[in-house]
């Protein structure tokens, strides 16, 4: 077989030139170890991966590492790279940049021989095992869907003004706009209002982390400002101890926290901001907000950033039966392989999947590994691993220099067929302990570890 490098030279292309892009390749993974792709493990087939975020990139890499060269992997994404949501709150406060958080697919191509198509998957056709990239069909033996999320619109805002109400929960242009609005807040003090949707949503601690970092920035740059946090949930959904201490401690005069409160309607101001009318809500079993009647109104907001209700990427809605979780918002899966419970040969990983695990980049990377392991075993005629383990882990900056963390270990429970938080049995050391926890305090040591974790996580995924 001809060497990949000679191929690319023969085509007059460099690996980087394959997908022309103006995204700066600045995500730092240059010293990462490159694991070898085995010549042959006995697995064969073509896997198409839709979406190059944390889940999609990881599954593509590990299908090659654990499957070998005869496992063809085609990764399709609409962009030339992924912009990390992890650390993106620092773009709002000015200590990181979008280009510094951008990870292209170049190394996945050159290091592991993954084929990358830059394009939008417009249709999935399970009957012919084909995805359509515009008018171009791409067939698959197995399909892994990792399209991430789509978001509901800001309520009450006309389409022409939606851009002034950024959630910035998918890092990119909205992040730039939200930072612009933050900088435009008056020096005499203003009001930044944000809203948190009912769980499940991407990154459980993320919104509270954003509230802290915005409050910290405002205290230093626009003193007298307020941060209003509307939360559709009955209380803080992650790291409750840490964020309660932060909201009641250093941010007591800045952050106003309103649980059980959701935006009913925004009456727009000029280029953003305005008035917010709310409902008092409870959250039903599928994660929908149910109104109990009108809640408080909030006027004179300079910035309104509603993190709206999320759903699996809309390309999945075109496949009947696929979105069979959380009232039609996400796809239910078998967590031994992440195969859809509704359709064969289609796997769903990352935020688009419905599981008992949180929606987050670190655990999406792990779901991808379980999926890649299962697919390559099936290709070899082996049984899937009957006892996968995953963990969620996240460091949360509480201010510009200090961070906390949270983590949980999940083991497969064959009775419920879900990933359950692990409780140590009686005959082990520390019996009865649930393997989860949050940091006792926010520290600069944790902040430094956060940087290490992020660099290594992105290298394991993109390098």
């Amino acid at each position: 077989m001809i060497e990949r490098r000679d191929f690319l030279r023969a085509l007059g292309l460099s690996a980087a030139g394959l997908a022309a892009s103006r995204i700066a390749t600045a995500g730092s993974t240059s010293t990462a170890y490159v694991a070898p792709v085995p010549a042959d493990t006995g697995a064969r087939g073509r896997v198409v991966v839709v979406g190059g975020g944390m889940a999609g990139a990881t599954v593509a890499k590990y299908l090659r590492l654990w499957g070998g060269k005869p496992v063809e992997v085609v990764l399709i994404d609409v962009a030339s790279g992924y912009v990390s949501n992890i650390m993106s709150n620092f773009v709002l406060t000015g200590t990181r940049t979008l280009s510094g958080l951008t990870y292209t697919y170049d190394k996945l191509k050159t290091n592991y021989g993954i084929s990358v198509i830059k394009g939008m998957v417009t249709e999935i056709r399970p009957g012919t095992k084909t995805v359509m990239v515009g008018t171009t069909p791409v067939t698959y033996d197995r399909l892994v869907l990792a399209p991430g999320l789509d978001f509901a619109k800001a309520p009450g805002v006309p389409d022409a003004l939606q851009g002034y109400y950024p959630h910035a929960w998918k890092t990119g242009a909205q992040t730039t706009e939200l930072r612009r609005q933050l900088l435009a807040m008056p020096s005499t003090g203003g009001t930044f209002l944000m809203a948190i949707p009912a769980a499940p949503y991407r990154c459980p601690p993320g919104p509270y982390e954003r509230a802290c970092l915005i409050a910290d920035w405002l205290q230093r740059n626009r003193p007298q400002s307020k941060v209003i946090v509307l939360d559709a949930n009955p209380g803080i959904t992650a790291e409750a101890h840490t964020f309660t201490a932060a909201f009641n401690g250093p941010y007591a005069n800045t952050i106003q926290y309103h649980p059980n409160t959701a935006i009913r309607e925004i009456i727009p101001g000029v280029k953003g901001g305005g008035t917010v009318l709310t409902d008092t809500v409870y959250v039903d079993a599928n994660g929908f907000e149910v109104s109990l009647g009108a809640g408080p109104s909030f006027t004179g907001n300079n910035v309104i950033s509603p993190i709206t209700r999320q759903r699996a990427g809309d390309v999945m809605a075109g496949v009947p039966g696929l979105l069979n979780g959380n009232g039609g918002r996400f796809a239910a899966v078998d967590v031994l392989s992440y195969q859809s419970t509704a359709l064969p040969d289609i796997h769903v990983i990352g935020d688009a999947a419905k599981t008992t695990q949180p929606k987050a980049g670190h655990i999406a990377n792990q779901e991808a590994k379980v999926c890649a392991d299962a697919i390559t075993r099936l290709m070899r005629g082996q049984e899937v691993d009957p006892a996968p383990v995953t963990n969620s882990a996240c460091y949360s900056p509480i201010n510009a220099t200090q961070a906390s963390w949270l983590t949980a270990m999940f083991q497969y429970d064959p009775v419920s067929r879900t990933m359950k938080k692990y409780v140590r049995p009686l005959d082990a050391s520390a019996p009865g302990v649930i393997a989860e926890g949050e940091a006792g305090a926010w520290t600069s040591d944790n902040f430094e570890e956060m940087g290490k974790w992020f660099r290594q996580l992105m290298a394991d995924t993109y390098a």
Partner: protein
Amino acid sequence: MIRRFLMAATIASIGALVAACGGGSDASGSADSASAASIEAKARRRTTPIATPTTPTAPLAPVTAVPTGRLLASNCFQCHGTNGRSSGGFDTLAGESISEIVGELREMQTKAEEDKGIMRVHALGYTDAQIQALAAYFASQPR
């Protein structure tokens, strides 16, 4: 206009890579239809049956066993590097002996809760058998 050209160029190159891996037709450029056709032709040439989840079928080539503990150990790659080879973050685990790794995890299990480290929680999250298995994987990795 430009976007379509770029996509056609990208798809053409993908078609070229795919076709050439199979022994190859000319990758010349036009069009979505030529490269889509080459992607499809390669798919049809494949004869190995693809397994379904409930009835794995025997493939036509020798099969390698999955290394013991690899999937468990991969939980650790996010902080300790792919295959346990760190690039300047937390400790490299590749090449450590089984007894070193088992010993370190046992020690972390017994840390007082007020130390509250992430690794304490992770060490408590595995059974003893799982710890042995993931330690065996790291021990088998080159340093």
